[in-house]
């Protein structure tokens, strides 16, 4: 059987869309007009004359910039009901279009699962944190004294909703309060500063890096409005310097919170007026926090111990992991694995995060996961991964220590390329150092701490 071949080696970028679309359209129409000769199976070979971008309707493009660079731009049509769509998938819009707009809610009791949020622990694989309807509603209650809102207030979450902090505070709390939420699917500091004023954002949910970027953008003279009432920071320690600079520029302080996926986000927040620098504040409404020794006994003020949390926000457990759940949940108390102390006034200070977890861009990264991957490289004998900060304002960087296999030559580029192919970009090591061996404990465990030697751990908040 003969098929038609169409060669177009001098194409414009729009041809990538227009040629197949025209052929498809004619074939479909042909079936309805019996007189017309049917269009044959068609193969199209195309090369473009100039650089070009074919973009979906929701992709934001700097058209002037494109013109300056000599890049042609073509836009795809919105995939309406009649457009082509990825084979064997269902369109969400179509699913909604055909359905009724009335639905009576399931009568889920408070302890029924609402969400599973995967989080990286100290051991390799992510664990599914089971959060219930009651957990989310308790978090709404817990933040009620920290953020007071009126119907005029508008939330904006720069934190993705797939992150517990974005989901529980940025989305659920805002709707619980009956406030509007401004959505930013593609966050850029520039764009946010512009829209912040237009949409009258008064409550901002973001992570330290983002506050830092907003500051830099504001310093470049980008317009900003003094509409912010509350700024919340979480997911990673916030440098005191950033809080001060932010207040000077935006006229509002940043409330630093402390919480975990396992606690449906915040359990402690530094109060607005009586904030203590370096502290994560006091336990919020309905939450108990205690600093305990290894046996779970409360320690007196200023003694460092493990941070334990109790309250309605504490997860139901880890999905399908009864053993791991039992290890952290006891009598309603959650062992966070974080170390800290409490002062005489009930303010909490976190001195060390869950052992070796790396926090980058607000995400928890398990060194074990990266190490495991590194060790799967045929030329790698062993590897260890640590997080490091060179400057307070900087994000934590991932450093990999690699011991090459006997007689093998390896380069950083090889290692980084290997990771890039197999890991999300934020997990890819920023730096690779080659070693003859790794420091180990008597039981053969790699001592990551020693690898960090020489790097002052700036996440630790020094007591004055």
């Amino acid at each position: 059987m003969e098929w038609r071949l169409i060669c177009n080696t001098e194409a414009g970028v729009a041809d990538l869309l227009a040629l197949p679309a025209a052929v498809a359209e004619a074939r479909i129409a042909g079936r309805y007009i019996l007189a017309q000769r049917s269009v044959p199976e068609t193969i199209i070979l195309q090369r473009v004359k100039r650089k070009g971008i074919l973009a979906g309707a929701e992709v934001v493009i700097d058209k002037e910039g494109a013109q300056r660079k000599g890049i042609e731009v073509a836009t795809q049509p919105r995939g309406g009901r009649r457009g082509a769509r990825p084979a064997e998938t269902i369109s969400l819009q179509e699913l909604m279009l055909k359905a009724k707009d009335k639905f009576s809610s399931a009568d889920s009791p408070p302890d029924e699962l609402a969400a599973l949020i995967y989080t990286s622990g100290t051991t390799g694989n992510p664990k599914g944190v089971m959060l219930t309807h009651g957990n989310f509603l308790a978090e709404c209650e817990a933040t009620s004294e920290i953020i007071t809102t009126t119907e005029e207030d508008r939330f904006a979450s720069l934190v993705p909703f797939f992150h517990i902090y974005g989901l529980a505070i940025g989305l659920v709390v805002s709707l619980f309060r009956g406030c509007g939420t401004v959505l930013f699917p593609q966050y850029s500091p520039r764009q946010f500063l512009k829209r912040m004023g237009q949409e009258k954002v008064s409550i901002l949910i973001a992570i330290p890096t983002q506050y830092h970027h907003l500051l830099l953008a504001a310093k470049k003279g980008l317009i900003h409005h003094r509409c912010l009432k509350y700024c919340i920071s979480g997911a990673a320690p916030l440098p005191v310097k950033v809080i001060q600079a932010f207040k000077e520029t935006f006229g509002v302080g940043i409330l630093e919170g402390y919480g975990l996926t396992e606690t449906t986000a915040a359990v402690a927040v530094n109060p607005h007026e009586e904030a203590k620098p370096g502290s994560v504040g006091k336990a919020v409404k309905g939450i108990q926090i205690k600093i305990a020794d290894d046996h779970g006994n409360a320690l007196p003020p200023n003694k460092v111990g493990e941070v334990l949390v109790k309250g309605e926000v504490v997860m139901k457990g880890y999905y399908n992991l009864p053993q791991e759940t039992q290890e952290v949940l006891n009598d309603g108390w959650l062992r966070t694995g974080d170390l800290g102390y409490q002062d005489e006034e009930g303010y909490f200070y976190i001195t060390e995060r869950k052992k070796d977890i790396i926090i980058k861009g607000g995400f928890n990264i398990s060194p074990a996961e990266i190490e495991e991957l590194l060790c799967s490289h045929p030329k790698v004998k062993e590897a260890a991964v640590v997080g490091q900060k060179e400057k307070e304002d900087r994000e934590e960087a991932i450093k990999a220590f690699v011991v090459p296999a006997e007689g093998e030559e390896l380069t950083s580029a090889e290692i980084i390329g290997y990771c890039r192919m197999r890991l999300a970009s934020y997990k890819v090591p920023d730096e690779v150092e080659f070693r003859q061996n790794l420091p180990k404990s008597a039981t053969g465990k790699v001592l990551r701490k020693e690898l960090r030697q020489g790097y002052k751990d700036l996440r630790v908040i020094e007591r004055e």
Partner: protein
Amino acid sequence: MNLGRLLEERAKKHPKRAALLYEGKAISFEELNKNVNRLANGLKDLGISRGDRVAIMLPNTPEFVYSFFACQRLGAVAVPFNTMYKGGEILYILKDCGAKAVITLNSAVPLINEIRPELPHLQYIITTGERNITFADPDSTLFLQGVLSKAVFRDLDEAYSRIGDAMVQGLRKLGLKEVWYKHRGSLRIRGRKIAGFYFSEIEDLYILNVICFLTPFDPTDFFSVIWVPPEVKDKVIEPLTSIQEELGKRPTDEEIKRAILSALEEKLGTKLKEGALTRDEKLGYEKHKALAKRR
């Protein structure tokens, strides 16, 4: 009170107040509530019921909010996860939670397709969003497209495997001995992508789109004029290779064309004959081209 009821009550209390503000538009609590109901009904019609896990891999769009609350309304369990995740990471989560459906962007479909055979629980890929990006470069990219009747293939799996085989054979003919192809995935050499393809469908047609890299692809210029959402950028900067890099030379246009097209003819059992657009097609072509440039 539960999360499903929460929105119902807010919608009753202040129906007209803006709940979501997105791209200059406001979606009121009443509208939000209705949209959540629509999606809940849609998911229910697919057989999603109480306790089922529904994965959500979306950025902060209204569709994320509909998806999350539709799950709550059904008593299903929402499993939101990072839009930057890649193959193995997505696989782990979808497998561990046993998701029956995943709601994601159109642009993430190839990523999920590649791991789908390992996910027996996953029944539905539900997609939204218009965030695809194709970069075209005069030196580096070659596009092979097809408008083919679905009847040419037994099913979509066969369509993917035959086109995959044809592309592998075509590149091998050029001397790229190490090229390999996995189910519904990309063609790779030592893990790096040298070509990729996907099928779309419209009525009883498959639309095939193959991109193949002839010379090293440099995205720098493109990134300077486009604000790329993280989840897309991550895909774009996926490690690439090209025919020139692998062979140490660039075969002529004619050699490349002949190798790929003859492999296609062999694997699809057909003869390709160069032709032109019909009059009707030409009219349609002009229309589509104008629209693509105007938007």
